[in-house]
């Protein structure tokens, strides 16, 4: 039997799914909080930054085509320093994942299941994600292939439906005495797309063709475009001040859509499915990354991976339910993101540079 490989289009779906995340519910509030009505400009610039960083990341994976990120780190920096560099990745991923789950459960409680406790919600979504990770990278690829177009179409729907409610004047004045904030917003903006690093984990499984990089860029571009469009439309519908009052602007946007005369009059049913799916894919991919990181960190064999997965899952349940207050959870989430901002910006160029030097030495030797 031939060895199974991920097809180039799957690079697109996996990358895109890695970028989509729980942030899609709150991206507008985050961005408007920094840059006001010009948030979308920051987001465009942030998106471009993410594209550049993503390309750097792709180059790193390309340098060592048969290794994933933890292996590359151990290879470049040696067993000890490699593990030290791996640690912040693990801490960030686990905390981010735990808090995403928490925010997801909170949003779900608020809009769908008000009396259901958070524990079963978190447990079930982790169960589904853990099951997917157990089934391996190709099964994950298959799931993403199906979920990604569904998500993209639903987001497009949510974007196009409220077109009759938009006020262009909400965007004005453009860049009036706000350039500083817009520039500051780039940092917040690029961080909405941190999923570009996922490529370093599954590039070793892909079929390498000339088109792979193009598919990867498409995988970065589509979610970036969707986020920007979502932010633009939300600002145009609600105005920057009102967004500040909304905990989950995307859900409110979906709730404002009504399609009279159809069987399901309100579009948030689709939004609900959308955001459950998005959280699932991002949790599954992050769990996959964390599993790989842990395996390399502890030098474990792949056949023990199931223990690692379910162990991480238990840890995540603890993290997700640790904080009791909802607002605290959200502010903790943005604190995590804020504190890792500079690290995230520099780490990949650094690793890539080191990897490049190492590779050159190797080829010379």
């Amino acid at each position, binding site marked *: *039997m*031939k060895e*199974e490989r*991920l*097809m180039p*289009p*799957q690079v697109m*779906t996996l990358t895109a799914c890695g970028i989509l995340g729980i942030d899609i519910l709150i991206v507008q509030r985050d961005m408007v909080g920094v840059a006001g009505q010009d948030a979308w400009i920051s987001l465009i610039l942030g998106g471009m930054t993410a594209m550049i960083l993503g390309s750097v990341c792709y180059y790193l994976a390309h340098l060592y085509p048969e290794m994933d990120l933890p292996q590359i780190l151990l290879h470049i920096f040696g067993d000890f320093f490699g593990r030290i560099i791996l640690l912040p990745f693990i801490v960030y991923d686990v905390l981010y994942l735990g808090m995403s789950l928490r925010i997801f459960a909170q949003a*779900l409680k608020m809009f*769908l*299941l008000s009396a*259901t406790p958070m524990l*079963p*919600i978190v447990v*079930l*979504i982790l*169960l*589904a994600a853990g*099951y*997917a990770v157990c*089934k*391996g990278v*190709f*099964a994950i*690829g*298959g*799931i993403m*292939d*199906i*979920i990604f177009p569904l998500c993209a179409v639903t987001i497009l729907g949510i974007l196009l439906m409220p077109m009759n409610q938009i006020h262009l004047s909400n965007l004005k004045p453009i860049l009036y005495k706000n350039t500083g904030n817009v520039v500051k917003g780039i940092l917040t903006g690029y961080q909405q797309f941190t999923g570009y690093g996922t490529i370093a984990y599954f590039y070793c499984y892909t079929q390498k063709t000339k088109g792979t990089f193009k598919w990867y860029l498409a995988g970065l571009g589509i979610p970036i475009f969707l986020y920007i469009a979502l932010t633009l439309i939300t600002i145009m519908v609600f105005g920057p001040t009102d967004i500040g009052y909304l905990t989950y602007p995307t859900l409110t946007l979906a709730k404002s859509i009504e399609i*009279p*005369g*159809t*069987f*399901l*009059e*309100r579009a*948030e*049913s689709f939004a*609900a*499915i959308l955001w*459950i*799916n998005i959280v*699932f894919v991002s949790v599954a991919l992050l769990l996959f990354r964390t599993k790989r990181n842990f395996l390399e960190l502890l030098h474990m064999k792949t056949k023990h991976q199931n223990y690692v997965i379910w162990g991480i899952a238990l840890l995540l349940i603890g993290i997700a339910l640790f904080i009791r207050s909802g607002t605290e959870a959200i502010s903790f989430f943005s604190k995590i993101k804020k504190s890792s901002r500079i690290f995230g910006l520099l780490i990949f160029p650094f690793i890539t540079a080191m990897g490049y030097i190492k590779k050159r030495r190797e080829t010379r030797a």
Partner: protein
Amino acid sequence: MVKLLKRRLEKKDRKKDKKFGIKGDTDHLKPFRLSEIVEDNITRLKNSMNNTFDIKSREFQIGGTKYQAAILYIADLVNEEMIMSHLLKPLILQSTAVIDSDTEVNFQSVKDSMLSIGSVQEAETFDEIVLAVMSGDTFLCIQGYAKGLIVNTRELNGKPFAVPTVEPSVKGPQEAFVETLKINLGLIRKRIRDPNLMLEEYKIGRRSKSESVLVYIKGIADPDIVEDLRKRLSSVDLDMGQSAFQIGTLVTDRPDSIFPQVQITERPDKLVVSLSEGRVAVLTDGSPNAILVPVTLPILMQSPDDYCESWLVSSLIRISRYVGLFLSSLFPAIYIAITSYNPGMLPTRLVLSIASTRTGVPFSAFIEALLMEAVLELLQEASIRLPKAVGQTVSIVGGLVIGQSAVQAGIVSPIMVIVISVTAVTSFAIPDYSLGLASRILRVPFMILATTLGSFGIAIGMLLLLTYLSSLKNFGIRYLSPITPYRFQDWKDTVIRAPFKDLKKRPEFLNPEDTERSHSRKKEKEIS
């Protein structure tokens, strides 16, 4: 302008050339001619037909002479009685009568006066002979002549066959497999006159020793799949190998999956089309079904009728089938989730009318649905068991008594009756019976998820199901291919069915060796 027209015409001409230049499957045999030695001829012919086990030859001496002769035919296609009484008998036993009357026994006299069969033709090149043998004629050659005779021994009336009952179709052929292996092979041979059609025989069952035949087309089917299946078939350890399904479960990786891991079909036309796409079949003596591997979900959603209508029509029908699959397992769950968790999604008037028809129903929506679902399953089971004569009773009792009276008695709400009826109808839109069963089994778990966690529960259930489906693999092929991994080329015949002119390539995900359906130029093969 004139130039343009000229170029256009030239292009057209070239196209025409291409059209006429298509080489048939037997054309590569054209340069080969018969020799004067009988054994040589027979072995070479057998080799060019890949030595499948149903090619029979008989070498003999023409009665009373020293002339060596041999006949060659395919057992599944010919009328063997006819060969015996009109070919062998006159040649072996009654030839003395001819010899007595001074005529010399030679090729011409055999042809003219010894064969009591209507159509006899001379042939010299392999391509005619192979084609004729593949069509059910018998080939006769005589020592010393570099030519032979093609004798028409085709089964004229056609052999007995059944009418498809499990997979009926509107416009497709109305032929189905029967319990006899030989007839079934004939039904396949009749449709493919390709010498590359391979038949390999296996004896399965320690006691029953029933014959199973592996069927595939050499040069199309992925050799890895064929090799894999060979290994699995020869290692089958079974007391009695009888039903095709039994063998099917033994050759798959995931026999306990509720989703069919082998496709079971009773239609020779479906089987033949699948072979030409690069799939592999196994037929078993005593079973009117053939199993087809590898199988994927989109393949199970195809029906032979798709290829009998305009592509727009078939595409729409196919999409509606997918909708049917979705609704058949999810509709009651969606109803429960929306009415008992999110009635806000429905239009106000609809909510009020559903709610008002439900006032007075003592059960929760879940119990109500479970009740109706149980009744539905029982009705379906009963209608299979009941003799045809009393079949009407079930529909009357089911439709009128249970449906209407239950509503009037206030046990279920009328909307629930509609929901369950829609579900019942949709499950029959799925072309594969086993897949329909799978979708029925999934209904109750989804209902439980819906009643405990609403639409979140359904979403979780869907995600688990999706994970399971995309982790399933048989014979190295993912169960959801070609939908995922994306193979844009194959999407033309997946959820939609593109026009035939766009379907020139065989499905890529089955790894066929020869990817082109038409316009292909085969390499000339050496025949040893």
